[in-house]
């Protein structure tokens, strides 16, 4: 069983961002980067499948500048077997262009299963996985919360609003992973040491045409500070007036 997992390096989201002077990316100084959460679940699921089968190979693929190697090593440290960096130094925001590069790498790689996180936690486009499936001509099940791979079939569960559906398709296939499926393990030092010796191949990314470009990043406007208009009963008429006239919610 050959599994590929496509992963993305994203900044830690629990901080307040600043926009870089270029206006096209966030200011990276002081930011910590890690694998996107959903991609982490995907790597964990892939590793668990090979562990359960006692055979198979998990290849992790990431597109970007050399700093994605750190992210790839992290995936290797929790059990992936091989890594590929599709080298491209400038930031790319078009999911289609990225999907083209990934498809070019995956095509002919003999993968039975290709996995993605259901979205990258930073840009939240949800497009790369399904676009790649389309380019590869493979069936895709998106945002799955449970996965069984058996006898050349994929059985998956998708959470819906208040319900779920069970879907199946035959291999080879693409799946994108939602949360709740598995928690990525904490890399042991043993894993980190082993990761240093696992193969990491660097290839130029064969990026497709970028059909949309990011024009400008902006922070949302700061919320205006609250106003105290008085205390007790006496303040009510004024509050009602403001809600009517200024906020226009009444």
């Amino acid at each position, binding site marked *: 069983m050959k599994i590929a997992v496509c992963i993305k390096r994203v900044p*830690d989201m*629990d*901080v*307040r961002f600043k926009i870089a002077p270029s206006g096209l990316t966030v200011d990276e100084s*002081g930011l*910590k980067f*890690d694998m996107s959460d959903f991609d982490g679940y995907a790597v964990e699921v892939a590793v668990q499948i090979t562990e359960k089968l006692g055979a198979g190979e998990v290849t992790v693929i990431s597109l970007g500048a050399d700093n994605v190697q750190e992210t790839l090593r992290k995936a290797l440290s929790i059990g992936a077997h091989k890594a590929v960096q599709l080298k491209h130094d400038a930031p790319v925001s078009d999911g289609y262009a990225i999907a083209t590069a990934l498809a070019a790498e995956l095509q002919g790689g003999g993968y039975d299963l290709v996995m993605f996180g259901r979205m990258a936690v930073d840009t939240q486009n949800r497009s790369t996985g399904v676009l790649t499936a389309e380019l590869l001509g493979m069936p895709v099940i998106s945002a799955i919360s449970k996965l069984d791979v058996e006898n050349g079939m994929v059985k998956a569960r998708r959470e819906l609003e208040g319900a779920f559906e069970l879907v199946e398709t035959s291999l080879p296939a693409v799946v994108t992973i939602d949360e709740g499926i598995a*928690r990525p*393990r*904490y*890399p*042991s*030092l*043993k*894993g*980190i*040491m082993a990761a240093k010796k696992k193969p990491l191949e660097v290839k130029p990314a064969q990026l497709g045409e970028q059909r949309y470009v990011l024009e400008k990043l902006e922070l949302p406007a700061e919320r205006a500070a609250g106003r105290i208009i008085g205390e007790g009963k006496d303040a009510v008429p004024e509050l009602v007036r403001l809600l009517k006239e200024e906020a226009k919610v009444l």
Partner: protein
Amino acid sequence: MTDSHVVFAIVLAVALGYFSYNVQRLIGYLRIGRLDDSRWGNIPARLWNLIRIGIFQEKIFRDSVAGPMHAAIFWGFCVLGAGTLEAILEGVIPGFSYRDLLIDPAYRFYALNQDLWGALVLAAVGFALFRRLTKRVKRLMGAETHPNDPLLILSWIGALMVTMFLAGAFLYVGYADEPLVRPLTYAVSRAFTWVNPSTARLLAEDFWWAHVLLVLGFLNYLPFSKHLHVVASLPNVFLSNTSGPGQVGVMQPMDLEGDAEVFGAKDVDQLSWKSLMDGFACTECGRCTSVCPANLTGKPLSPRKIMINVRERLEQKAPFLTGDTTYQKGDRDAVMAKSLLDDFITEEELWSCTTCRACVQECPVSLDQLSVILELRRNLVLGESRFPEEVMPAFESMEQRGSPWAFDPGDRGKWADGMNIPTMAEMAERGERPEVLYWVGCAGSFDDRAKKTTVAFAKILQAAEVKFAILGQEEKCNGDPARRMGNEYLYQMLAKDNVETLNKYGVRTVVTACPHCFHQLGNEYPQFGGDYEVVHHSTYIASLLAAGRIPIVEALHAPVRTFTYHDSCYLGRYNGVYEAPRDVIKRALPIVNLVEMERSKDKGLCCGAGGGRMWMEEKTGKRINAERADEAIATGADAIAVACPFCMTMLNDSVTSRDSHVAVYDIAEVVADRLA
């Protein structure tokens, strides 16, 4: 030379031969352990430990009942050893006696001491047996102990004394000219005056034989008994580092670059040989377990069991590793498939430890139970990624955001907004250098309650006109939670980053209100090239107060307040700071009544937060912080003073949950409250 001398010489040779064979066998077992060359430096300090802890039984006396009892037996053994040697030499050299070697007053002194100490040992042994058989002394019990062994040993010692007295008594009966140098023995002999002298002479010889055979038997029983401590404890005290030389409680760095197959220890052969020797020296006295906060509150951890397990597993596995076929028990593959971790000591035991060091402090023979626990934890985390799942976010956050809590690192210095406190970076830009760097720590930077302490301490520094700075965003977690939880990899990452930052600014003096930061920066960062003078805020405030540098209002008309001070483990047992915080409270509150809890200073009970327990759930038994809060409330104090942000959280939570009106303050808050 008579036949009996020849027989005895043979018996003696066999006995000594067998004893030395067994000692060598056990030393061979120690050789399977990891190398540890930190045991031979600073001989004078080690000799001093040997004298005060070994010879003067300093730690033994921490128990007021067992202390004198054991000291009597131990000192008795030292004195009686001379007599035993005489008895043995008598056995091989016809007619040998110290009488011919020692001039008279010396001989009389020697003989008198044999007599008196013999009686004292007999009395102490009698008391010990009585205590074990009739009083259910809690600390002497426990599933892991070998309860019959001490009974056998005590009876054996009793028999040694009885045969010694009887042999001497029948000499008095048998030989009218025997000098009257042993009054007690002589008194015993008066009970046997009806025995005819020639029979008495034979009986004297018989009891001599009984005595020396018991001695040699005892010697050869030791290697198989928990009483191996009779032989192992003195060397152990000499080789131990738990009372120095050097700083105590410091974890040794791991080599993370090397090609280690196993990280930390999973089994005995990955522990240091000294930890293995600790197993041989353990007396099963249970003093450690009786003070262990985890054990006291119903958790599955017993530090005594840890040491007993080390010895059990060593004696099980070592024969297979050393090729000692006589002692190989069971199937080789089955034995080799087991390990100390899991088969003897469970994960749950290991995670129950708060690293409070009470066990180490209490152990009369200077064992280091804690280092075994920490080595096994290292293996769990680094080797197998096994730890309570609630710890994962703390690990990830330490790595990602430099704090065990998921706060934005950019907010680290936020507490200081509007206080006009410069960062090191700002000072450096102006080409200035502070008198001290105030290292705030994660709790002090992000925890709402601890932030009040931080602000209070900063105000004190400002009031005392100390020129200080903070690191702000550049500060990171000191790494202690990671290191104590076994995550040395993460720890070293943080420590190295911090050392780099501190060295970049040429920092010399650091003051901090967190005992964990204090211990790390002062005692463990030197391992990574960080050498600073680190002062805890208790000591710092005490000296500012003593120098009259803090303007405090006279409060002679304020109501009298009763405080009790809770000792932080990392300030107290790890660093010996007991007086400074008490001094601060007294000086800041001229009308203060300071009461002590029953367990205080080096006997203080942990708050329950150390060793990463702060980030773990406490599911079994009573909560440790509840146990401690109850003790504090029971003193009748109206306020509890602490000097550690973690103790603050733990005690505050517990006091609040008990609906008590007792308030919890950091000592800095007490002083800041009095600022003029």
